[in-house]
Protein backbone atom coordinates (compact mmCIF):
# COMPACT_ATOMS: atom_id res chain seq x y z
CA UNK A 1 0.00 0.00 0.00
CA UNK A 2 1.37 3.42 -0.91
CA UNK A 3 0.17 6.83 0.32
CA UNK A 4 -2.30 8.54 -2.01
CA UNK A 5 -2.64 11.84 -0.11
CA UNK A 6 -3.92 14.62 -2.35
CA UNK A 7 -5.23 12.23 -5.04
CA UNK A 8 -8.13 13.78 -6.95
CA UNK A 9 -9.37 10.40 -8.20
CA UNK A 10 -11.14 10.27 -11.53
CA UNK A 11 -9.35 13.10 -13.38
CA UNK A 12 -8.86 13.77 -17.10
CA UNK A 13 -5.59 11.80 -17.15
CA UNK A 14 -7.32 8.63 -15.93
CA UNK A 15 -8.30 6.44 -18.89
CA UNK A 16 -10.70 3.51 -18.68
CA UNK A 17 -10.48 0.92 -21.48
CA UNK A 18 -10.86 -2.76 -22.24
CA UNK A 19 -8.12 -5.20 -23.14
CA UNK A 20 -9.81 -8.41 -24.28
CA UNK A 21 -12.42 -9.15 -21.63
CA UNK A 22 -10.52 -7.22 -18.94
CA UNK A 23 -11.52 -3.70 -17.88
CA UNK A 24 -8.37 -1.61 -17.40
CA UNK A 25 -7.54 1.81 -15.97
CA UNK A 26 -4.47 3.87 -16.84
CA UNK A 27 -3.08 7.07 -15.32
CA UNK A 28 -4.16 6.52 -11.70
CA UNK A 29 -2.16 7.86 -8.77
CA UNK A 30 -1.28 4.29 -7.77
CA UNK A 31 0.34 3.78 -11.20
CA UNK A 32 2.02 7.19 -11.34
CA UNK A 33 3.33 7.20 -7.78
CA UNK A 34 3.99 3.45 -7.96
CA UNK A 35 6.31 4.04 -10.92
CA UNK A 36 8.35 6.44 -8.77
CA UNK A 37 8.49 3.86 -5.98
CA UNK A 38 10.26 1.48 -8.39
CA UNK A 39 13.07 4.02 -8.77
CA UNK A 40 13.86 4.15 -5.05
CA UNK A 41 17.48 3.83 -3.93
CA UNK A 42 18.51 4.56 -7.51
CA UNK A 43 20.30 7.19 -9.56
CA UNK A 44 18.63 9.07 -12.44
CA UNK A 45 21.24 10.50 -14.80
CA UNK A 46 20.98 13.53 -17.11
CA UNK A 47 21.98 12.65 -20.69
CA UNK A 48 22.03 14.50 -24.01
CA UNK A 49 22.91 11.68 -26.47
CA UNK A 50 22.30 7.98 -27.11
CA UNK A 51 25.95 7.25 -26.21
CA UNK A 52 25.57 8.90 -22.81
CA UNK A 53 22.27 7.06 -22.22
CA UNK A 54 23.98 3.72 -22.88
CA UNK A 55 26.85 4.58 -20.53
CA UNK A 56 24.28 5.51 -17.87
CA UNK A 57 22.34 2.26 -18.33
CA UNK A 58 25.51 0.14 -18.19
CA UNK A 59 26.61 1.95 -15.05
CA UNK A 60 23.36 0.99 -13.29
CA UNK A 61 21.25 4.13 -13.66
CA UNK A 62 17.64 3.49 -12.72
CA UNK A 63 16.45 5.91 -15.45
CA UNK A 64 17.84 8.59 -17.74
CA UNK A 65 16.68 12.20 -18.09
CA UNK A 66 17.02 13.62 -21.60
CA UNK A 67 18.01 17.26 -22.05
CA UNK A 68 19.14 19.35 -24.98
CA UNK A 69 22.10 20.65 -22.94
CA UNK A 70 23.44 19.62 -19.54
CA UNK A 71 22.44 22.18 -16.85
CA UNK A 72 25.94 23.71 -16.65
CA UNK A 73 25.85 24.33 -20.42
CA UNK A 74 22.36 25.82 -20.13
CA UNK A 75 23.79 28.22 -17.57
CA UNK A 76 26.71 29.16 -19.87
CA UNK A 77 24.64 29.43 -23.04
CA UNK A 78 22.00 31.80 -21.68
CA UNK A 79 19.03 32.43 -23.96
CA UNK A 80 15.89 30.33 -23.75
CA UNK A 81 16.23 26.68 -22.71
CA UNK A 82 13.46 24.45 -24.11
CA UNK A 83 12.57 20.74 -24.14
CA UNK A 84 15.01 18.42 -25.94
CA UNK A 85 14.73 17.34 -29.60
CA UNK A 86 12.02 14.72 -29.96
CA UNK A 87 14.21 12.84 -32.45
CA UNK A 88 16.95 12.38 -29.83
CA UNK A 89 14.46 11.41 -27.11
CA UNK A 90 13.00 8.81 -29.49
CA UNK A 91 16.44 7.40 -30.34
CA UNK A 92 17.21 7.03 -26.66
CA UNK A 93 13.83 5.36 -25.99
CA UNK A 94 14.68 2.82 -28.70
CA UNK A 95 18.19 2.16 -27.35
CA UNK A 96 17.84 1.54 -23.61
CA UNK A 97 15.53 -0.68 -21.53
CA UNK A 98 15.46 1.54 -18.43
CA UNK A 99 12.83 4.30 -18.11
CA UNK A 100 13.39 7.51 -20.08
CA UNK A 101 12.37 10.90 -18.66
CA UNK A 102 12.52 14.32 -20.27
CA UNK A 103 12.17 17.89 -19.10
CA UNK A 104 9.59 20.47 -20.12
CA UNK A 105 9.39 24.16 -19.19
CA UNK A 106 7.45 25.13 -16.05
CA UNK A 107 3.84 25.81 -17.06
CA UNK A 108 4.35 24.78 -20.70
CA UNK A 109 1.34 22.50 -21.13
CA UNK A 110 2.04 21.68 -24.76
CA UNK A 111 5.70 20.78 -24.37
CA UNK A 112 4.44 18.31 -21.78
CA UNK A 113 1.73 17.02 -24.16
CA UNK A 114 4.38 16.44 -26.81
CA UNK A 115 6.52 14.51 -24.32
CA UNK A 116 3.52 12.40 -23.29
CA UNK A 117 2.82 11.61 -26.96
CA UNK A 118 6.50 10.71 -27.40
CA UNK A 119 5.91 8.14 -24.66
CA UNK A 120 8.54 9.25 -22.16
CA UNK A 121 8.02 7.41 -18.86
CA UNK A 122 8.05 10.52 -16.68
CA UNK A 123 7.93 14.26 -17.40
CA UNK A 124 10.08 16.65 -15.35
CA UNK A 125 8.53 20.12 -15.14
CA UNK A 126 11.88 21.69 -14.54
CA UNK A 127 13.38 24.99 -13.43
CA UNK A 128 16.50 24.14 -15.46
CA UNK A 129 14.56 25.21 -18.54
CA UNK A 130 13.22 28.75 -19.02
CA UNK A 131 9.75 28.95 -17.43
CA UNK A 132 6.78 29.53 -19.76
CA UNK A 133 4.42 30.49 -16.92
CA UNK A 134 5.90 31.09 -13.50
CA UNK A 135 2.51 31.73 -11.92
CA UNK A 136 0.84 28.51 -12.99
CA UNK A 137 2.50 25.15 -13.06
CA UNK A 138 1.01 22.50 -15.34
CA UNK A 139 -2.22 20.94 -14.02
CA UNK A 140 -0.74 17.48 -14.07
CA UNK A 141 -4.02 15.67 -13.34
CA UNK A 142 -4.86 16.19 -17.03
CA UNK A 143 -2.03 13.83 -18.01
CA UNK A 144 -1.77 10.04 -18.07
CA UNK A 145 2.02 10.16 -17.78
CA UNK A 146 3.49 10.88 -14.34
CA UNK A 147 5.36 14.10 -13.46
CA UNK A 148 8.26 14.95 -11.18
CA UNK A 149 8.62 18.50 -9.86
CA UNK A 150 11.28 20.37 -7.93
CA UNK A 151 10.74 21.87 -4.47
CA UNK A 152 12.84 23.82 -2.00
CA UNK A 153 10.55 23.44 0.98
CA UNK A 154 7.48 21.56 2.21
CA UNK A 155 5.00 24.14 0.88
CA UNK A 156 6.35 23.94 -2.67
CA UNK A 157 6.39 20.13 -2.51
CA UNK A 158 2.78 19.85 -1.31
CA UNK A 159 1.55 22.46 -3.83
CA UNK A 160 3.14 20.46 -6.65
CA UNK A 161 1.59 17.22 -5.32
CA UNK A 162 -1.83 18.89 -5.21
CA UNK A 163 -1.33 19.84 -8.89
CA UNK A 164 -0.72 16.15 -9.60
CA UNK A 165 3.06 15.59 -9.26
CA UNK A 166 3.78 11.89 -8.61
CA UNK A 167 7.32 12.48 -7.39
CA UNK A 168 9.32 15.35 -5.88
CA UNK A 169 12.97 16.22 -6.22
CA UNK A 170 14.31 18.63 -3.66
CA UNK A 171 16.01 21.33 -5.72
CA UNK A 172 19.63 22.26 -5.50
CA UNK A 173 21.21 24.84 -7.76
CA UNK A 174 21.50 23.05 -11.11
CA UNK A 175 24.67 23.06 -13.18
CA UNK A 176 26.95 24.29 -10.41
CA UNK A 177 28.62 21.04 -9.36
CA UNK A 178 27.98 22.34 -5.85
CA UNK A 179 25.82 20.25 -3.55
CA UNK A 180 25.36 22.98 -0.92
CA UNK A 181 21.90 24.15 -2.00
CA UNK A 182 20.57 20.59 -2.28
CA UNK A 183 21.68 19.96 1.30
CA UNK A 184 19.96 23.12 2.58
CA UNK A 185 16.68 22.27 0.86
CA UNK A 186 16.42 18.65 1.95
CA UNK A 187 17.15 19.80 5.50
CA UNK A 188 14.43 22.47 5.18
CA UNK A 189 11.91 19.83 4.13
CA UNK A 190 12.95 17.50 6.95
CA UNK A 191 12.67 20.26 9.57
CA UNK A 192 9.21 21.24 8.36
CA UNK A 193 8.07 17.60 8.31
CA UNK A 194 9.24 17.16 11.90
CA UNK A 195 7.37 20.31 12.86
CA UNK A 196 4.01 19.25 11.40
CA UNK A 197 4.45 15.70 12.73
CA UNK A 198 4.83 17.06 16.25
CA UNK A 199 1.74 19.27 15.83
CA UNK A 200 -0.17 16.23 14.55
CA UNK A 201 1.04 14.04 17.40
CA UNK A 202 -0.08 16.69 19.87
CA UNK A 203 -3.55 16.60 18.30
CA UNK A 204 -3.56 20.38 17.70
CA UNK A 205 -5.92 20.72 14.71
CA UNK A 206 -6.04 24.48 14.98
CA UNK A 207 -2.28 24.76 14.56
CA UNK A 208 -2.38 22.29 11.67
CA UNK A 209 -4.96 24.45 9.88
CA UNK A 210 -2.72 27.49 10.24
CA UNK A 211 0.13 25.46 8.71
CA UNK A 212 -2.11 24.64 5.73
CA UNK A 213 -2.91 28.35 5.28
CA UNK A 214 0.75 29.31 5.57
CA UNK A 215 1.80 26.68 2.99
CA UNK A 216 -1.16 27.51 0.71
CA UNK A 217 -2.37 23.91 0.53
CA UNK A 218 -5.40 21.95 1.68
CA UNK A 219 -5.83 20.86 5.27
CA UNK A 220 -6.24 17.22 4.26
CA UNK A 221 -2.84 16.95 2.55
CA UNK A 222 -1.14 18.58 5.55
CA UNK A 223 -2.90 16.18 7.90
CA UNK A 224 -2.00 13.08 5.88
CA UNK A 225 1.59 14.19 5.40
CA UNK A 226 1.91 14.97 9.09
CA UNK A 227 0.59 11.54 10.05
CA UNK A 228 3.10 9.89 7.71
CA UNK A 229 5.99 12.07 8.89
CA UNK A 230 7.31 12.13 5.31
CA UNK A 231 6.26 13.39 1.90
CA UNK A 232 3.40 11.25 0.51
CA UNK A 233 5.39 10.68 -2.72
CA UNK A 234 8.91 9.50 -3.47
CA UNK A 235 11.49 12.25 -2.92
CA UNK A 236 14.88 12.36 -4.66
CA UNK A 237 17.66 14.89 -4.14
CA UNK A 238 18.97 16.90 -7.08
CA UNK A 239 21.27 19.73 -8.02
CA UNK A 240 25.05 19.85 -7.87
CA UNK A 241 25.77 16.19 -7.07
CA UNK A 242 29.25 15.46 -8.47
CA UNK A 243 30.86 12.69 -6.43
CA UNK A 244 29.91 9.35 -4.80
CA UNK A 245 30.29 11.00 -1.39
CA UNK A 246 27.83 13.75 -2.41
CA UNK A 247 25.24 11.11 -3.33
CA UNK A 248 25.79 9.05 -0.18
CA UNK A 249 25.54 12.17 2.01
CA UNK A 250 22.16 13.11 0.51
CA UNK A 251 20.92 9.54 1.07
CA UNK A 252 21.79 9.85 4.78
CA UNK A 253 19.52 12.91 4.91
CA UNK A 254 16.54 10.71 4.05
CA UNK A 255 16.26 11.05 0.26
CA UNK A 256 14.83 8.08 -1.64
CA UNK A 257 17.44 8.42 -4.40
CA UNK A 258 19.33 11.02 -6.42
CA UNK A 259 19.26 12.83 -9.75
CA UNK A 260 22.69 13.62 -11.16
CA UNK A 261 22.82 16.38 -13.75
CA UNK A 262 26.07 17.83 -15.03
CA UNK A 263 28.16 16.02 -12.40
CA UNK A 264 28.72 12.90 -14.49
CA UNK A 265 29.00 13.90 -18.12
CA UNK A 266 30.79 17.19 -17.36
CA UNK A 267 33.51 15.20 -15.59
CA UNK A 268 36.44 13.72 -17.53
CA UNK A 269 35.90 10.26 -16.06
CA UNK A 270 32.16 9.95 -16.78
CA UNK A 271 31.98 6.15 -17.07
CA UNK A 272 33.77 5.34 -13.82
CA UNK A 273 32.03 8.21 -12.05
CA UNK A 274 28.58 6.99 -13.14
CA UNK A 275 29.31 3.51 -11.75
CA UNK A 276 30.82 4.92 -8.57
CA UNK A 277 27.82 7.17 -7.85
CA UNK A 278 25.45 4.19 -8.31
CA UNK A 279 27.51 2.09 -5.87
CA UNK A 280 27.61 4.88 -3.29
CA UNK A 281 23.83 5.42 -3.57
CA UNK A 282 23.10 1.70 -3.16
CA UNK A 283 25.50 1.05 -0.30
CA UNK A 284 25.36 4.49 1.36
CA UNK A 285 25.00 2.93 4.82
CA UNK A 286 28.42 1.30 4.51
CA UNK A 287 31.26 3.90 4.72
CA UNK A 288 33.81 1.38 3.49
CA UNK A 289 31.86 0.75 0.28
CA UNK A 290 31.39 4.50 -0.24
CA UNK A 291 35.15 4.93 0.18
CA UNK A 292 35.71 2.24 -2.48
CA UNK A 293 33.30 4.12 -4.76
CA UNK A 294 35.05 7.41 -4.08
CA UNK A 295 38.37 5.72 -4.96
CA UNK A 296 37.01 4.97 -8.43
CA UNK A 297 36.98 8.68 -9.33
CA UNK A 298 39.75 11.25 -9.61
CA UNK A 299 38.99 14.61 -8.01
CA UNK A 300 41.16 16.33 -10.63
CA UNK A 301 38.61 15.14 -13.18
CA UNK A 302 35.52 16.45 -11.34
CA UNK A 303 33.74 19.39 -12.95
CA UNK A 304 35.17 22.65 -11.64
CA UNK A 305 31.88 23.88 -10.28
CA UNK A 306 30.63 27.25 -9.07
CA UNK A 307 30.18 29.03 -5.79
CA UNK A 308 26.40 29.33 -5.36
CA UNK A 309 26.65 32.66 -3.48
CA UNK A 310 27.21 35.05 -6.40
CA UNK A 311 25.21 33.49 -9.22
CA UNK A 312 23.46 35.79 -11.65
CA UNK A 313 20.88 33.12 -12.44
CA UNK A 314 19.29 31.24 -9.55
CA UNK A 315 17.27 28.53 -11.30
CA UNK A 316 15.90 27.24 -8.00
CA UNK A 317 13.76 30.35 -7.54
CA UNK A 318 11.83 29.81 -10.77
CA UNK A 319 8.16 29.12 -10.10
CA UNK A 320 8.79 28.68 -6.37
CA UNK A 321 6.21 31.16 -5.11
CA UNK A 322 3.37 29.71 -7.18
Amino acid sequence: MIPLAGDLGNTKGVVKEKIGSFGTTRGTSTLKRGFAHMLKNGVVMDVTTVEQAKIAEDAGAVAVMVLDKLPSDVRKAGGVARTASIRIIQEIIDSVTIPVMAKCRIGHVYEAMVLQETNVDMIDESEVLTPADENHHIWKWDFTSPFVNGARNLGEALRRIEEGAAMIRTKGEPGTGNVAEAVIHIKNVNTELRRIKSIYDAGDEQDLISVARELKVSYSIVEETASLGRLPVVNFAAGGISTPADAAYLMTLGCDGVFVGSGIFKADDAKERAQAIVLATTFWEDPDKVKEAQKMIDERQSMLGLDTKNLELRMQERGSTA
Partner: protein
Amino acid sequence: MSGGINVGILAVQGDVEENILATKMAIEELGMEGIVTEVKTPEQISDLDGLIIPGGESTVIGTLSLVNGSLKKIKEKIASGMPVFGICAGMIILSKKAKDRVVGEMDQPLLDFLDIKIERNAFGRQKDSFESEISIDKIGVSKFPGVFIRAPSIIEIGKDVEILSKFNEKIIAVKQGNVIGTAFHPELTGDISLHKYFVSLIKKKN
Protein backbone atom coordinates in the same frame (compact mmCIF):
# COMPACT_ATOMS: atom_id res chain seq x y z
CA MET B 1 11.02 -13.59 18.26
CA SER B 2 13.56 -16.42 18.30
CA GLY B 3 10.89 -18.98 17.45
CA GLY B 4 9.55 -17.14 14.42
CA ILE B 5 10.38 -17.12 10.73
CA ASN B 6 12.96 -14.73 9.30
CA VAL B 7 11.81 -13.10 6.04
CA GLY B 8 14.10 -10.79 4.09
CA ILE B 9 13.34 -8.17 1.44
CA LEU B 10 16.26 -7.72 -0.96
CA ALA B 11 17.07 -4.05 -0.41
CA VAL B 12 19.46 -3.23 -3.23
CA GLN B 13 17.07 -1.02 -5.18
CA GLY B 14 13.30 -0.73 -5.62
CA ASP B 15 10.14 -0.68 -3.50
CA VAL B 16 11.39 -2.41 -0.38
CA GLU B 17 9.35 -0.60 2.27
CA GLU B 18 5.94 -1.58 0.84
CA ASN B 19 6.95 -5.25 0.85
CA ILE B 20 8.13 -5.05 4.45
CA LEU B 21 4.73 -3.66 5.47
CA ALA B 22 2.72 -6.18 3.44
CA THR B 23 4.80 -9.13 4.74
CA LYS B 24 4.52 -8.01 8.36
CA MET B 25 0.74 -7.74 7.99
CA ALA B 26 0.63 -11.18 6.35
CA ILE B 27 2.56 -12.80 9.21
CA GLU B 28 0.29 -11.16 11.74
CA GLU B 29 -2.94 -12.14 9.96
CA LEU B 30 -1.76 -15.74 9.67
CA GLY B 31 -1.14 -15.75 13.40
CA MET B 32 2.50 -16.65 12.87
CA GLU B 33 5.58 -15.28 14.55
CA GLY B 34 8.44 -13.78 12.63
CA ILE B 35 10.56 -10.84 11.66
CA VAL B 36 10.88 -9.00 8.34
CA THR B 37 14.14 -7.24 7.54
CA GLU B 38 15.94 -5.49 4.70
CA VAL B 39 18.81 -7.60 3.39
CA LYS B 40 21.72 -6.46 1.22
CA THR B 41 24.66 -8.75 1.98
CA PRO B 42 25.29 -12.51 1.48
CA GLU B 43 25.65 -12.87 5.29
CA GLN B 44 22.18 -11.41 5.90
CA ILE B 45 20.69 -13.60 3.17
CA SER B 46 22.17 -16.81 4.61
CA ASP B 47 20.10 -16.39 7.81
CA LEU B 48 16.76 -16.18 5.99
CA ASP B 49 13.81 -18.59 5.83
CA GLY B 50 12.18 -16.69 2.95
CA LEU B 51 13.07 -13.86 0.56
CA ILE B 52 11.20 -11.31 -1.54
CA ILE B 53 12.94 -9.72 -4.51
CA PRO B 54 10.93 -6.52 -4.98
CA GLY B 55 10.04 -4.39 -7.96
CA GLY B 56 12.60 -1.94 -9.30
CA GLU B 57 14.92 -1.99 -12.29
CA SER B 58 16.00 -5.55 -12.96
CA THR B 59 19.29 -4.52 -14.61
CA VAL B 60 20.24 -2.47 -11.54
CA ILE B 61 19.18 -5.02 -8.90
CA GLY B 62 20.82 -7.87 -10.83
CA THR B 63 24.11 -6.11 -11.51
CA LEU B 64 24.55 -4.78 -7.98
CA SER B 65 23.60 -8.11 -6.36
CA LEU B 66 26.19 -9.79 -8.55
CA VAL B 67 28.89 -7.32 -7.46
CA ASN B 68 28.63 -8.11 -3.74
CA GLY B 69 27.95 -11.86 -3.97
CA SER B 70 24.27 -11.73 -2.98
CA LEU B 71 23.13 -13.32 -6.23
CA LYS B 72 25.27 -16.41 -5.62
CA LYS B 73 23.98 -16.72 -2.05
CA ILE B 74 20.34 -16.42 -3.16
CA LYS B 75 20.93 -19.21 -5.68
CA GLU B 76 22.33 -21.49 -2.98
CA LYS B 77 19.39 -20.74 -0.71
CA ILE B 78 16.84 -21.47 -3.44
CA ALA B 79 18.60 -24.78 -4.14
CA SER B 80 18.27 -25.67 -0.45
CA GLY B 81 14.51 -25.05 -0.61
CA MET B 82 14.06 -21.49 0.64
CA PRO B 83 10.83 -19.93 -0.72
CA VAL B 84 11.37 -16.83 -2.84
CA PHE B 85 8.83 -14.37 -4.22
CA GLY B 86 9.95 -12.27 -7.19
CA ILE B 87 7.82 -9.27 -8.10
CA CYS B 88 8.12 -7.71 -11.56
CA ALA B 89 11.88 -6.95 -11.70
CA GLY B 90 12.29 -9.67 -9.05
CA MET B 91 10.64 -12.24 -11.31
CA ILE B 92 12.89 -11.19 -14.19
CA ILE B 93 15.96 -11.79 -12.01
CA LEU B 94 14.68 -15.27 -11.05
CA SER B 95 14.15 -16.24 -14.69
CA LYS B 96 16.35 -18.10 -17.17
CA LYS B 97 16.14 -15.64 -20.01
CA ALA B 98 14.85 -12.13 -20.73
CA LYS B 99 14.36 -10.04 -23.82
CA ASP B 100 13.09 -6.52 -24.18
CA ARG B 101 10.09 -5.75 -26.38
CA VAL B 102 11.94 -2.96 -28.22
CA VAL B 103 15.67 -3.46 -27.60
CA GLY B 104 15.66 -7.27 -28.03
CA GLU B 105 17.69 -10.04 -26.34
CA MET B 106 19.21 -8.98 -23.02
CA ASP B 107 22.52 -9.93 -21.49
CA GLN B 108 21.81 -9.13 -17.85
CA PRO B 109 22.65 -11.05 -14.65
CA LEU B 110 19.82 -13.53 -13.94
CA LEU B 111 19.41 -16.24 -11.31
CA ASP B 112 18.51 -18.78 -13.97
CA PHE B 113 16.09 -20.60 -11.69
CA LEU B 114 12.51 -20.13 -12.92
CA ASP B 115 12.27 -22.07 -16.18
CA ILE B 116 10.61 -19.22 -18.03
CA LYS B 117 11.44 -16.71 -20.72
CA ILE B 118 10.44 -13.13 -20.02
CA GLU B 119 9.45 -10.33 -22.30
CA ARG B 120 10.37 -7.10 -20.53
CA ASN B 121 8.07 -4.09 -20.86
CA ALA B 122 5.59 -6.44 -22.57
CA PHE B 123 2.61 -4.11 -22.13
CA GLY B 124 4.44 -0.96 -23.24
CA ARG B 125 5.89 2.06 -21.49
CA GLN B 126 4.70 3.91 -18.38
CA LYS B 127 1.76 5.61 -20.14
CA ASP B 128 0.44 2.09 -20.88
CA SER B 129 0.81 0.93 -17.26
CA PHE B 130 -2.61 -0.17 -16.00
CA GLU B 131 -4.74 -1.53 -13.20
CA SER B 132 -7.11 -4.41 -13.78
CA GLU B 133 -8.96 -6.97 -11.69
CA ILE B 134 -7.38 -10.40 -12.18
CA SER B 135 -7.94 -13.80 -10.63
CA ILE B 136 -5.46 -16.21 -9.08
CA ASP B 137 -7.85 -19.13 -8.65
CA LYS B 138 -5.01 -21.66 -8.25
CA ILE B 139 -4.31 -20.26 -4.79
CA GLY B 140 -7.93 -19.55 -3.94
CA VAL B 141 -7.94 -15.83 -4.76
CA SER B 142 -10.75 -15.13 -7.21
CA LYS B 143 -10.40 -11.34 -7.35
CA PHE B 144 -7.13 -9.48 -7.01
CA PRO B 145 -6.23 -5.86 -7.85
CA GLY B 146 -3.55 -6.21 -10.54
CA VAL B 147 -1.20 -3.22 -10.72
CA PHE B 148 0.98 -3.47 -13.83
CA ILE B 149 3.83 -0.94 -14.09
CA ARG B 150 5.97 -1.23 -17.24
CA ALA B 151 5.24 -4.86 -16.58
CA PRO B 152 6.91 -7.92 -18.10
CA SER B 153 5.05 -11.02 -19.25
CA ILE B 154 6.09 -14.65 -19.48
CA ILE B 155 6.38 -15.87 -23.06
CA GLU B 156 7.72 -19.41 -22.59
CA ILE B 157 7.52 -21.87 -19.70
CA GLY B 158 9.21 -25.18 -18.89
CA LYS B 159 7.37 -28.36 -17.85
CA ASP B 160 7.89 -27.84 -14.10
CA VAL B 161 6.31 -24.41 -14.13
CA GLU B 162 2.74 -23.93 -12.95
CA ILE B 163 0.74 -21.00 -14.35
CA LEU B 164 -0.97 -19.10 -11.51
CA SER B 165 -2.64 -16.36 -13.53
CA LYS B 166 -3.17 -15.00 -17.03
CA PHE B 167 -4.23 -11.61 -18.34
CA ASN B 168 -5.72 -11.62 -21.83
CA GLU B 169 -3.79 -14.80 -22.75
CA LYS B 170 -0.50 -13.43 -21.39
CA ILE B 171 1.02 -15.34 -18.45
CA ILE B 172 1.44 -12.96 -15.49
CA ALA B 173 2.10 -15.22 -12.48
CA VAL B 174 3.94 -18.53 -12.12
CA LYS B 175 5.16 -20.99 -9.50
CA GLN B 176 7.96 -23.53 -9.67
CA GLY B 177 8.65 -25.44 -6.46
CA ASN B 178 8.90 -22.86 -3.72
CA VAL B 179 9.50 -19.96 -6.07
CA ILE B 180 6.72 -17.57 -7.12
CA GLY B 181 6.91 -14.81 -9.69
CA THR B 182 4.37 -12.13 -10.57
CA ALA B 183 4.40 -9.46 -13.29
CA PHE B 184 2.21 -7.19 -11.15
CA HIS B 185 2.72 -5.40 -7.83
CA PRO B 186 0.64 -6.72 -4.89
CA GLU B 187 2.66 -4.55 -2.46
CA LEU B 188 1.27 -1.34 -3.97
CA THR B 189 -2.31 -2.38 -3.17
CA GLY B 190 -4.11 -2.88 0.13
CA ASP B 191 -4.66 -6.58 -0.64
CA ILE B 192 -2.16 -8.84 1.12
CA SER B 193 -3.54 -12.22 0.00
CA LEU B 194 -0.52 -12.98 -2.23
CA HIS B 195 1.91 -12.08 0.55
CA LYS B 196 -0.10 -14.34 2.88
CA TYR B 197 0.15 -17.18 0.38
CA PHE B 198 3.91 -16.67 0.11
CA VAL B 199 4.40 -16.49 3.89
CA SER B 200 2.39 -19.71 4.29
CA LEU B 201 5.03 -21.50 2.18
CA ILE B 202 7.80 -20.51 4.59
CA LYS B 203 8.84 -23.00 7.22
CA LYS B 204 11.12 -22.20 10.10
CA LYS B 205 14.41 -24.03 9.58
CA ASN B 206 15.92 -26.20 12.35
